[in-house]
């Protein structure tokens, strides 16, 4: 792990294709886990986790942005694993306090970690959602190395929910592999207790350089066994028909829960909306 000062900006605009503006907070970069599909591997030059030491500058920049009052969604966890780095920089606790002053602005803390005990000391907030990225257990064991098991993550979700925080599920990335339909069915049964919160999902996307990196690390990677097409943004995605069936299956499992699909072609979402009224 490396501690250093961030000389650039802490906030970055990210295009999730959602109906509100989205900004990612970069308090650290890099992740201690080793998920085969993760873009961070091809994104940052350092292989270690870098934690920025100039937190005051981060808070200053963040508060300035929040004061604009544009009802944006901010993400913590786009460039790092926030609950894991919190052990070292205590940032989650502090950032929650910043958001307490701006109830109209939303913060999503996206994680795969399971250490949530520190939240006991914090008064819950309605504009903060803890979102766990989940894959079905079987594929997670194979491609998410070092990450707490799906079972452990679900336990952490239950604890967090019991503490009064909002808890959400992110199916990110949605994967097609042998037996995916049954496995996603089982997974969604296990997390049905949080499906009052919008479920958000996006099918796998790879940059060509990430695909080459995955191949060079594991030429038999399950992730690469699928068919991809190059989409307009230059990323590799499953063919549209496969994505349609993937989303359609998930939507069929949660017909009465609010669902959002992000980073996806708008006309594909439009086509799905014709079938599913719960798709926001």
């Amino acid at each position, binding site marked *: 792990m490396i501690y250093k000062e961030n000389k650039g900006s802490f906030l970055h605009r990210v295009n999730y294709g959602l109906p509100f503006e989205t900004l990612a907070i970069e308090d650290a970069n890099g992740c201690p886990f080793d998920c085969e599909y993760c873009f961070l591997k091809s994104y940052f030059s350092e292989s270690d986790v870098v934690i920025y030491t100039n937190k005051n500058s981060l808070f200053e920049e963040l508060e300035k942005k929040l004061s604009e009052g544009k009802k944006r969604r901010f993400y913590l966890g786009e460039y790092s694993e926030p609950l894991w780095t919190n052990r070292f920089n205590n940032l989650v606790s502090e950032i929650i306090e910043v958001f307490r002053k701006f109830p109209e602005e939303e913060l999503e803390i996206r994680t795969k970690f399971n250490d949530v005990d520190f939240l006991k000391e914090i008064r819950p907030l309605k504009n903060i959602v803890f979102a766990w990225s989940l894959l079905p257990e079987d594929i997670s064991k194979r491609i998410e190395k070092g990450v707490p098991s799906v079972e452990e993550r679900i336990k952490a979700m239950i604890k967090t929910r019991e503490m009064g925080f909002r808890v959400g599920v992110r199916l990110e990335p949605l994967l097609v592999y042998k037996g995916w339909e049954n496995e996603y069915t089982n997974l969604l049964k296990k997390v049905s207790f949080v499906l009052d919160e919008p479920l958000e999902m996006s099918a796998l996307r790879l940059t*060509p350089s990430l*695909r*080459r990196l995955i*191949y*060079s690390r594991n*030429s*038999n990677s399950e992730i*690469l*066994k*699928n*068919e*991809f*097409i*190059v*989409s*307009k943004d230059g990323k590799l995605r499953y*063919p*549209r*028909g*496969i994505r*349609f*069936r993937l989303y359609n299956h998930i939507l069929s499992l949660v017909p009465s829960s609010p669902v959002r699909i992000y980073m996806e*072609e708008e*006309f*594909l979402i439009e*086509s799905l909306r014709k079938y599913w009224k719960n798709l926001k």
Partner: protein
Amino acid sequence: MEEIRIEEINIQEPQVVIHLGDVNFLEKSVLNYGILSPPILFKNRGALEIVDGWARLKIANAHSMEKVKCQILQCSLKEAFLFHLSLNIKWRGFSEGEKLLIFKRFMNYGFREEEVIEGWEKISGERISRDFLIECLKLYDEIPEVVEFLHSGKINLTTAKELLKFPENWRKEILSFLRKVKGSTGEWINLLRLLEEGLYSGRIKEIEWLKNFSDLKSPLKKTFELSHPYTARCMEEIARILEELPPNFCLKLPEYLCGNNAELKINFNILEDLKIPENLNEVLSKVRKIVVEGVDL
């Protein structure tokens, strides 16, 4: 100007000369009229090196001429190289293969990347990016055979750079196919991207079969079907649906529903007296459904 014995000049492996391919195009002129324009030389660590006039000196040497009047410059190796490039770019230009050699030579002579970019811009008027330079050097280092292909015009730099995306063990086979078959840049890139997809996904295990083709159309089709089986099935279904239209009604779809042709674009010419089939809307909505929703997995 000095009269120099040809044997004193390094003609076999000149240090700064960049010249691939035939040098005998001046032969008739040299034999009939002698060397009209004196070669330019410089001294490098005591040896006489050529700045300009390598082709002339090579012909003179081959025809056992003993002495040639030359101009000798007092300059460093780096200066001689820049001078060589400036002179040659004016009268013959450099091929893409030679360009790769030039960039490599710049680096070997100790120019820094920024100096290469600036130096090349001064000489050629072409501003290249640092990424472009790095990619060219990578291409030279990793696939040296590509210099010859680029020089002969069999492929261009855009296509050659696509080769870098393949793991080393695939490159040789692909290059031997490129050597054999003619194609446009667009066709090459399409083939290479389809191949890349098939190889990375493991649906294409080996590419020996490419050897059996002497044109590009058939391997393109085969590579598409192997690398994109699902999309190929969608295409087949669409072709079947289109058969519902009258045979004289021509409707064109993008060749493949992959790549950047992802959106459904249907082109047909509006001609005088063209009768729009009654089932056109129905057919188009069926096609659209396949394009968006696909076929069963």
